[in-house]
């Protein structure tokens, strides 16, 4: 648990898989830095999903499994975005795992 990530000169604790240790520490810059480490430059489309995940967590207190995320995104952001092909094009390491990490959430429930 001694790993940290540096964002704007501040250190934030992360777990052994790179997920933010404290959900409440999250600032958008953390997503930008984590994405850069994965060679991704965040676009508005990425932010839609990251913000969606944070809202989902706020309401239900869990990070959704990818199946559930896909359905819920389709409902909220339109059917053309509610499919795994679109989500994987944004988050190649898995929309639930990678996007949740950028969003500062714990690893999704149901990620077996």
């Amino acid at each position, binding site marked *: 648990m001694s790993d940290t990530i540096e964002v704007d000169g501040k250190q934030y604790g992360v777990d052994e898989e790179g997920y933010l240790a404290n959900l409440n520490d999250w600032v958008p810059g953390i997503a930008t830095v984590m994405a850069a480490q994965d060679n991704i430059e965040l676009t508005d489309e990425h932010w839609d999903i990251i913000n969606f995940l944070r809202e989902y967590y706020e309401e*239900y*207190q869990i990070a959704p499994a990818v199946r*559930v995320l896909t*359905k819920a995104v389709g409902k909220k952001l339109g059917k053309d975005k509610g499919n795994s092909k679109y989500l994987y094009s944004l988050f190649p390491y898995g929309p639930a795992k990678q996007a949740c990490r950028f969003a500062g959430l714990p690893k999704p429930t*149901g990620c077996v």
Partner: protein
Amino acid sequence: MSEVVKKFMYLNRKAPYGTIYAWEALEVVLIGAAFDQDVSVMFLDDGVYQLTKGQDTKAIGMKNFSPTFRTLGDYEVKKIFVDRASLEARGLTQDDLVEIAWEDFETEEEIENIVEVIDSARVGELMNESDAIFSF
């Protein structure tokens, strides 16, 4: 994926906090939901407290996970049962419990609340019909 669909029942008998059983049971249900089985979740005895509205856990320093039950519909769990006698013994009614909605995104079929309060005879029947019961 196996084509044989089994009837899985998750039985919740314990209060939401004080032990880890209730939260662990919910996680098992959510993870197990990925396997496309016929899943039902039953609340009995102190387990009925897990579904009560207006929980506030600040003073005990635990995460209030009661909002998470409302995702069960998203996870395609459509059968949630509560034992009426257990509710009555604790001075509770269905009005004290959270509502869990379910919606089919393809057909837009919607059920406003899938939480069903049933009598003890029906509880017994449902247990008998189950292929596997996971008791927490």
